[in-house]
């Protein structure tokens, strides 16, 4: 491989695992591709890029603060979805590491009355709303900025009040594909209605139609109150009752029916607005933390283990004398 080709490979080479090159016996007709000079010249990408978790191009643009604003923090409204949870945080960046101002998890919603469907559009709305109210309460702005009390799915932006300007954050979607109706925009809507100023456009809310280039507030309102889930529930109960039992088993267990969803969400919103502070769980942190990896052996322990293994090998070798040892 000429040096030029190596350089080309460097720029386009994907992140490679560390210990893939072992000194195994070379078979005559294979040329070792990843030689020692390859590894000596290989430049790894940033750790979070190797893990596929951070988009540095987007992060740079979100974090960069005007230099003539000196230490003024630039807050990002971070929304991330896992398989069973929604994480919403207000984060500001610093050289020591990002500082989280406030956070809200969908797994906290059971305290506010939402037991099932913790990762749907409606739950994302609740999480965004919870985060917004928490931040405003922390900054003592919650009286001034009540946000949108009339949830009708229309595009709402915070009006500046007399004394302080609204709390401003920028939406950070991470590596999500921002399609219309994505749950991340449900969380965005929750935060907006909660009273945070986030620059946005209504183009990606659920219910925006590409043809008419307008947001259908009715459809958006339906999604915020879980109307799409309720519709699916009713179609399943009519057509496929067994599938309804399997899909919505937890809903059935808590006694939720398609018609009751909307009023349940209304109650959750009211509970969130009433007291958004996090509930302390009674659990104490364990005195001895659980070990997730093996403890390193001492030199004596390793030597003793080696002697044990050799003895076992010799004993076994003595017994299987007929077998051919390689």
């Amino acid at each position, binding site marked *: 491989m000429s040096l030029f080709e190596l350089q080309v490979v460097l720029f386009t080479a994907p992140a490679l695992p560390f210990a893939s090159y072992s000194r195994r016996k070379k078979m005559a007709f294979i040329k070792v591709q990843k030689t020692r000079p390859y590894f000596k010249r290989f430049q790894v*990408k940033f750790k979070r890029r190797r893990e596929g978790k951070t988009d*540095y191009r987007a*992060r740079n643009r979100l974090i960069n603060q005007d230099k003539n604003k000196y230490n003024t923090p630039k807050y990002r409204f971070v929304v991330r979805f896992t398989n069973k949870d929604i994480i919403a945080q207000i984060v500001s960046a610093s*050289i020591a590491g990002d500082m989280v101002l406030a956070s809200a998890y969908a797994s906290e919603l059971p305290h506010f009355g939402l037991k099932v469907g913790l990762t749907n559009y409606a739950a994302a709305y609740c999480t965004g709303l919870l985060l917004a109210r928490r931040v405003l309460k922390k900054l003592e702005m919650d009286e001034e900025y009540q946000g949108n009390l009339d949830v009708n799915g229309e595009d709402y932006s915070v009006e500046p009040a007399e004394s302080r300007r609204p709390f401003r954050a920028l939406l950070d979607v991470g590596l999500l594909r921002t399609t219309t109706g994505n749950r991340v925009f449900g969380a965005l809507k929750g935060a907006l209605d909660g009273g945070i100023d986030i620059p946005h456009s209504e183009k990606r809310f659920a219910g925006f139609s590409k043809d008419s280039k307008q947001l259908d507030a009715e459809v958006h309102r339906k999604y915020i109150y879980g109307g799409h889930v309720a519709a699916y529930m009713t179609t399943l109960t009519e057509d496929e009752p067994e599938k309804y039992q399997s899909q919505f088993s937890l809903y059935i267990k808590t006694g939720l029916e398609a018609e009751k969803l909307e009023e349940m969400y209304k109650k959750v919103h009211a509970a969130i607005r009433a007291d958004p502070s996090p509930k302390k769980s009674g659990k104490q942190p364990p005195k001895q933390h659980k070990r997730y990896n093996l403890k390193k052996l001492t030199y004596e322990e390793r030597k003793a283990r080696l002697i044990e293994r050799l003895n076992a090998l010799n004993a076994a070798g003595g017994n299987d004398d007929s077998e051919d040892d390689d």
Partner: protein
Amino acid sequence: MPAGHGLRSRTRDSFSRAFRKKGVIPLSTYLRIFKIGDYVDIKVNGAVHKGMPHKFYHGRTGRIWNVTKRAVGVEVNKQVRNKILKKRIHVRIEHVQQSRCTEEVRERIKKNDQLKADAKARGEIVSTKRQPQGPKPGFMVEGATLETVTPIPYDVVNDLKGGY
């Protein structure tokens, strides 16, 4: 064809990125804050093409006189024939690092202020001036053996063997 003298001529090595440090610029570059009056080193980052200073300023240190959205104004000394000009240039953040040239002075000032305050409390006068390193004190040489070396008599036969 003669050599050109363009803006970035002769910068092949100085503006190139370091070995295995190419690609995405670490974000701490963008998180540092600069105030007017700070001293900064100018070190060009070849990956960012905007707001690059001229190659003359690469490696110079200057004071900040202006802070804008994405750049700082730096005042650098430049010798032009028989005088030194104070040149004011604007440089983007990526090409500028906080200088440590005043670090030692600032630490010493802090330490001296503390020493003086302590001495005042005790009622003594203390000199905080730095003293130059004096001549080394005298010492006895340890473990020395004496070896007398004398020249050996000149032996014509052996020295000229095979030579003449």
